[in-house]
């Protein structure tokens, strides 16, 4: 019994260690590829500035601080969803290339490849979010919900990123082909992020869209993040609940983690 416990703790320790080594490897690869940097840093910053200055004037939100207060939590939510594209691409690529087969033929924790991928992608997202907040501050955004609210908004964005990366991990492992993932891996993200409260108040959409836009997970998360960032009580358009979004994310993970793990085992 006690040896079993010892085995289990050492297994967990080694599992975490293996995942950490792979996280480091994946981050190093990311730092070395200019295209990845562009995708993960420059593109979100560009989105922030484009929406702020091009659409901002046409969209009235009735918020103190104007559109940029509305926009920043939304565009961070969108970035969290887009980040997951990298997860799908990398996993499909590594499957094709054979590097995952090498890792699977080694005595490392079964979970390490997926955890190392998710770990690196979340750190990548965190860096991006911090940069976006800095850019937001330069163009007029201000947190008005205190340090706690700001920190919690960042945590929410990471939770959202994690859930989206789990979906993408499954997609990348299931499709297995980098080019197909390039073509189709992001399609599901577009309606989810654009038909949501991320960029415009849902009230400005046609009635039949509102029903979807109000109740889908991205809107719920973005609404909650907005409420946290701006220090408003959770109510439209700031999100009806602080907990409904995270609940969605947990549900998404409950479905997609087992799917991803199963696909990984059979890939």
């Amino acid at each position, binding site marked *: 019994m006690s040896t079993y416990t010892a085995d289990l703790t050492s297994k967990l320790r080694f599992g975490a260690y293996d995942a950490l080594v792979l996280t480091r490897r994946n981050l190093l690869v990311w730092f070395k*590829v200019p295209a990845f940097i562009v995708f993960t840093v420059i593109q979100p910053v560009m989105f922030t500035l484009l929406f702020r200055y091009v659409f901002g004037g046409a969209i009235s939100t009735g918020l103190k601080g104007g559109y940029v207060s509305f926009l920043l939590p939304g565009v961070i939510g969108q970035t969290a969803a887009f980040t997951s594209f990298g997860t799908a691409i990398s996993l499909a690529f590594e499957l094709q290339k054979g590097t995952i087969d090498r890792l*699977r033929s080694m005595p490392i924790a079964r979970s390490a490849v997926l955890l190392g991928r998710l770990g690196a992608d979340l750190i990548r997202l965190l860096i991006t979010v911090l940069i976006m907040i800095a850019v937001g501050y330069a163009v007029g955004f201000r947190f008005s919900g205190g340090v706690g609210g700001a920190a919690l908004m960042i945590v929410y964005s990471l939770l959202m990123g994690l859930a989206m990366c789990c979906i993408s991990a499954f997609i990348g492992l299931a499709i297995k082909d980098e080019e197909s993932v390039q073509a189709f891996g992001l399609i599901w993200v577009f309606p989810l992020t654009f038909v949501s409260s991320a960029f415009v108040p849902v009230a400005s959409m046609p009635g039949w869209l509102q029903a979807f836009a109000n109740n889908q997970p991205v809107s719920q998360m973005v609404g909650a993040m907005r409420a946290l960032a701006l220090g408003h009580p959770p109510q439209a358009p700031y999100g009806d609940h602080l907990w409904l979004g995270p609940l969605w994310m947990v549900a998404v993970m409950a479905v997609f983690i087992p799917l991803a793990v199963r696909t990984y085992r059979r890939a």
Partner: protein
Amino acid sequence: MTNDHAIVVEGLHKSFGDVHALAGIDLVVPRGSVLGVLGPNGAGKTTAVKVLTTLLAPDSGRAIVDGRDVVAEAEAVRRSIGLAGQSAAVVDELSGRENLEFIGRLFHLSAAESRTRASELLESFGLTDAAERRAKTYSGGMARRLDLALSLVAHPRVLFLDEPTTGLDPRARNDMWAVIRQLVAEGTTLLLTTQYLEEADELADDIVVFDHGKVIAQGTADDLKDTIGGDVVEFTVEDKGTVATALRAVSGCGEGEPSATEEGEITVRAGRNGSAVLLEVVRRLDKSKLTVFGLGVRRPSLDDVFLALTGHKADDDDEIEGAA
């Protein structure tokens, strides 16, 4: 019994839908020996390697590697093996050294140990000068050598190489062969797949020939060559009118009677003494004053093996190709 055998395979089956990638394979590889698995595209070589390296579960049958069952004791098997798959599984963005060091860390070597091991391997694979360069900039041969080095970080007792020289030029192939020979000299058991009879001949103690997921022949390289009649001496007469004369001239040089094609190409089966037969053919042609070109000894190719064993050429099977 399993103890003096590094690999024992019994009745292995694996299907993908309708394709029987492995249709009942039996193999035994003694410790310290080299088994060459020879077969055309789609024969089931990679599938066999994947089952033996715990990447793929068989539908039925049993495979024991280094005394452990690949399904029930997969974790233990992974501690004994090294794998270099059919494509070079290196991380392109990282340098050769970084690739090696990360694998070292995953085998729970310390940072310093990983560095030392990486340097050793870079040195013995002739990659020291390229160590700090991204693997993306490596030539095909260098990438393959790095891939092999990656599979050796933890000193595996049983090594699997899936077509280690496919796509390499003759020089890179020779370099690779030298590296592999050295490993074998150090006592590593090796299972190697290849599409080239010559490669199996150069490196393997024993050869099994796969076709459609089955072992269709098995033995040493010499055994196989005997099956197909060994070396072949070939030449072409300049004037097609002289074919009959030429046939008469070289009659009795090799094994059986020489044969000729409509294009005037004459073939003499030479068994194991290709050069002796070649000499005799030269003498006789000289004496009969015939003008010929393209005279030489040809070693039997995979195609010859297949033609002899199955009656079809290795690559004229669209059925299996189409399923790929």
